[in-house]
């Protein structure tokens, strides 16, 4: 192999590393910018905080939505339970939940890097690139530092799969138990982890059916006991609020659009991942990573078409793709280096295509997933890269905001955004009585009750499990000092009641969204 090819390989690897490190820098700055922001950045963050507050008070968040405050959670408890001690110490705040999620994304990246290093011939550089590639994904980027449970679920899933990959074939009972316990934790962080559990057991069954069955029985039994306890402790609301309310309308074109976007952004990794799966299918044994990837890409992708779902549903498959592509490339490099010396001399080294291809794939991936601010200190670089804002005034996202289901976030918040939020809080403080708001953050800062969870009420209403008579009565008798709408997620009868009893007072723009502030119609008190 010529020295030129080796030097070129190192140069390209260095360029790929720098490109992915730049992506990580943007992710870090985004997290640093977002973590202290005291309001909802993504609709729903405040309700996750509400769940943590309820757990800190020893209460379950799975409740009857027909009675005041018409609130219930639709997510399992683990993430919010982790937040409960922090509520005791710091009071209700967003920053610790966001830090928890951000750290979880780093744990996923480390687990991915470790898996590639361990199972891919200990190629440290490619292992590091694989971990960085996960953090560079647009889908991971914008959900990573949110007060949402999804990132923790992915971290638990990834850790479980990486542990099981070695523990099950090695009949390491402690390792298997730990892996399955992490899977239970992932499932009780978010229901979507059920797909990973099915994939893990499908692989275990392929490998050793006799060993897999008792483990599956124990797993199902343990998981079912927790499920039954939660259902009994919540008087059946656990079932209604986390299962019934999560069966939402499916939009095939949303799923299709997200599948296309997923491939456009991650194709540079998906192709080598797919090649490794083909190789394992016909010439080797199927690894847990291959089956995990296939299940999560297919089922997670389909699930992304549900109302309220989105690109984050692909995050687990991206973790699997990062592992598979890293292993594929590191094994290819190893195999290329092992080719006979005479062949290497004849062809100037058959390794050169893969030596150049591996870093080029990561470079291409870094460009495909590029997102960055285009103003301030980033302006010269944006100009150099010929990147112009395409989503917000000063932010570029290679995914754009055109695909339905792709979360329209990722840009940095400004002081004006925080000032706008505080203005809404001041309006609440000046009002009397509870406030009906589509986001919970304002109520927390104004020390008012968090009333209702609009998407949950919508989903329950469509499932025939919410009527809202009492809430409509409160609206029609002007018992809410203000109504704050952003996306008008409430069920139609609730929105109609609001339209009858409340009138638009003013609009406050925060995070580039318009918050409609409504007050009781004139003469309401007469």
């Amino acid at each position, binding site marked *: 192999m010529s020295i030129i090819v080796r030097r070129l390989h190192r140069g390209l690897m260095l360029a790929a590393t720098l490109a992915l490190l730049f992506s990580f820098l943007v992710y870090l700055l985004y997290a640093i910018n977002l973590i202290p922001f005291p309001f909802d950045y993504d609709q729903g963050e405040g309700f996750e905080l509400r769940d943590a507050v309820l757990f800190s008070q020893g209460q379950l968040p799975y409740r009857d939505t027909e009675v005041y405050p018409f609130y219930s959670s639709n997510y399992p408890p683990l993430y919010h339970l982790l937040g409960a001690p922090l509520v005791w110490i710091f009071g209700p705040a967003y920053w610790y939940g966001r830090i928890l999620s951000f750290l979880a994304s780093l744990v996923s990246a480390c687990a991915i890097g470790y898996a590639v290093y361990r199972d891919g011939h200990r190629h440290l550089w490619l292992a590091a690139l694989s971990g960085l590639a996960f953090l560079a994904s647009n889908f991971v980027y914008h959900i990573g530092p949110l007060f949402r449970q999804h990132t923790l679920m992915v971290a638990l899933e990834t850790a479980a799969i990486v542990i099981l990959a070695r523990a099950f074939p090695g009949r390491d009972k402690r390792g298997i138990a730990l892996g399955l316990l992490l899977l239970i934790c992932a499932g009780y962080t978010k229901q979507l982890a059920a797909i990973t559990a099915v994939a893990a057991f499908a692989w275990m*069954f*392929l*490998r*050793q*059916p*006799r*060993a897999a069955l008792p483990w599956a029985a124990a797993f199902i039994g343990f998981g079912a006991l927790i499920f039954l306890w939660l259902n009994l402790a919540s008087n059946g609301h656990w079932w209604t609020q986390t299962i019934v309310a999560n069966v939402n309308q*499916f939009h*095939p*074109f949303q*799923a*299709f659009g997200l599948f296309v976007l997923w491939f456009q952004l991650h194709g540079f990794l998906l192709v080598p991942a797919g090649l490794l799966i083909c190789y394992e*299918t*016909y010439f080797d*044994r*199927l690894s847990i990573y291959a089956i995990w990837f296939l299940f999560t890409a*297919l089922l997670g992708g*389909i699930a992304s078409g549900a109302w309220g779902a989105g690109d984050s549903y692909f995050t687990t498959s991206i973790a699997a793709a990062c592992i598979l592509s890293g292993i594929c490339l590191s094994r290819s490099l190893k195999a290329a280096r092992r080719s006979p010396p005479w062949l290497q001399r004849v062809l100037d080294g058959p390794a050169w295509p893969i030596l150049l291809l591996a870093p080029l794939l990561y470079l291409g991936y870094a460009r495909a997933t590029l997102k960055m601010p285009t103003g301030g200190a980033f302006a010269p670089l944006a100009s150099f890269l010929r990147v112009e804002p395409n989503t917000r005034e000063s932010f570029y996202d290679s995914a754009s905001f055109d695909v339905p289901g792709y979360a329209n976030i990722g840009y940095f918040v400004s002081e004006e955004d925080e000032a706008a939020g505080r203005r809404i809080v001041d309006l609440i403080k000046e009002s009397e009585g509870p406030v009906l708001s589509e986001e919970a953050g304002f109520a927390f800062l104004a020390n008012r009750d968090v009333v209702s969870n609009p998407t949950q009420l919508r989903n329950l209403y469509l499932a025939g499990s919410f009527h809202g008579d009492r809430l409509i009565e409160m609206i029609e008798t002007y018992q809410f000092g203000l109504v704050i709408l952003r996306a008008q997620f409430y069920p139609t009868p609730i929105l109609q009641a609001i339209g009858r009893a409340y009138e638009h007072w003013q609009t406050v723009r925060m995070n580039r969204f318009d918050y409609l502030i409504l007050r009781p119609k004139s003469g309401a008190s007469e």
Partner: protein
Amino acid sequence: MFSRDYTVTKRQLGFAFVVIGIVGILGVLAVDILQVGRQGGIGPAQAFALFVLVVLLIVGLTLIPLGDAPA
């Protein structure tokens, strides 16, 4: 079959894929047959399911000749 070291072979996996593929394809097509009068014929979700099942069927058929190699 259920010895401690028993493992599923590529042939068995291939047969399983073929069965799932055929039954699945018939099931997806049956949706239209059973819901007579529904407008639009095969919808996008059905088309996607058919695509996945046909791929599964083809993979299954190509796995069967690989015999007792572990899957």
